[in-house]
């Protein structure tokens, strides 16, 4: 039986690349995203190659929606072996004093609360089968900080702390919990917002001389879902071309 992976944020960017990578490795994927069309598009790409994929519409911030989405997947598929929490983003570049409470909540909820909710709903199935991999998404900014991204840095640092505690909690159940921290990654959404000159400048600051691709990041997610990493838990794998070396 193929492993079953649930990937939040799988409609675009890094999540989409992770879904495609997992599918080529023979993993059945459930693509969860609030952009239903994007999730469906990722699944269609996967099905062209004969692999197994289904889309689920969900807003990761809403406890009820997350609970229902996971329950429906468990109903149909029996279990979830791999959970990749990728839905997220920084959304605002604003000084602290200009941030509204609603904006703060939005960034914290999508990046951190969404990760908590999906872990909470999925962990019981993994505990039951004494096997599972959870891979959450941080960012180098969760470690270094970044001016104008206070809520995002707080949320991503929170993801790292949360994941360490969960790793300790689930270790005796055979469930491993790790974090991938991407560096600057050329996803379509990021590319839209960048002027080419700034991108060049950034690339020049990176030891490997280029921004990351969604595929670079997807390889790290696959590694942390595979038998090759069976003794790794509670760790953060930074994939950033050497831009940040914590």
């Amino acid at each position, binding site marked *: 039986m193929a492993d079953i992976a649930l990937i939040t944020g799988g409609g675009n960017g890094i999540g989409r690349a992770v879904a495609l990578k997992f599918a*080529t490795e023979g993993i059945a994927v459930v693509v969860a995203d609030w952009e239903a069309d994007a999730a469906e598009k990722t699944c269609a790409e996967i099905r062209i190659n004969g692999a197994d994929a289904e889309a689920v519409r969900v807003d990761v911030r809403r406890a009820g929606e997350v609970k229902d989405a996971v329950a429906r997947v468990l109903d149909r598929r029996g279990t979830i072996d791999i959970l990749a929490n990728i839905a997220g983003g920084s959304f605002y570049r604003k000084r602290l004093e200009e941030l509204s409470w609603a904006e703060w909540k939005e960034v914290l909820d999508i990046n951190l609360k969404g990760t908590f909710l999906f872990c909470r709903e999925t962990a019981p199935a993994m505990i039951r089968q004494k096997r599972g991999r959870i891979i959450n998404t941080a960012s180098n900014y969760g470690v270094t900080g970044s001016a104008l991204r206070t809520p995002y840095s707080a949320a991503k640092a929170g993801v790292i702390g949360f994941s360490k505690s969960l790793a300790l909690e689930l270790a005796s159940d055979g469930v491993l919990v790790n974090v991938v921290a991407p560096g600057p990654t050329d996803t379509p959404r990021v590319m839209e917002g960048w002027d080419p000159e700034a991108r060049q400048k950034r690339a020049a600051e990176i030891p*490997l001389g280029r921004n990351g691709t969604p595929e670079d990041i997807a390889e790290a997610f696959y590694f942390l879902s595979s038998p090759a990493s069976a003794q790794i838990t509670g*760790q953060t794998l930074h994939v950033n071309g050497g831009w940040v070396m914590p």
Partner: protein
Amino acid sequence: MTPMRLKGKSAVVTGGAQGIGRAIVLGLAREATNIAVADLQRDKAEEVAAEARNFGVTAIAVQTDVASEESVANLARQALGRFERVDILVNDAGIFPQARVTEITEEIWDRVLDVNLGGNFLCCRAFVPSMRAQKSGRIISIASGIAHTGAVAGAHYAASKAGIVGFIKALAREVGPDGVTANAVCPNIIDTELPRSHRTPAELHERLVRNPLGYAMQPEDLVGTVLFLASDAASYITGQAVNVNCGTVMI
């Protein structure tokens, strides 16, 4: 799993005669990588090279003291002479003679730093020029969780292993523009001669399983991470210290 695409590449593994290094040699051989096994212990290195050849690869043993400039220069001549290019350098050779700070003699201090950290410097210095010239290369150094936590009777060892992590980060910045990556792997305790030499079997077992996963790590358990870091899949990862330790240390 799709193969790691390491077929036909060449690697040098220091400390490859036993323990973790031997497991890495055999893991690479299984992926069809040619290997030079570099170790102080000539006969054991020969035996491991012979085991590697069973996988159909070219494997040579080169008796090497990684703390000696002449010896490492000889290693580079032999390996580059035989394979023409070295794609992967694994710095595994290491020693851990336990001693409290007040009991560490200058000889012990120098030897631990020279082998564990100096060996990294000499081997990287020997193989980086050819990696730069070919615009690709992977350097993987076995450090230790003790780099982060320290250990009683291990101040010299902790200094050398933390030194490796710092060295690898600086090196990653220097060689990155040439397409070469440098990373460290930090295990906690693994069942080899190294911890066996200063523990009773019962003590060792208790220490091995004292981690969140309750699992006693074997040398083979580092192979997956080393192969990943050596492969194209990790081409955007550099300057990192990857902890493979059953959750003992989380940073």
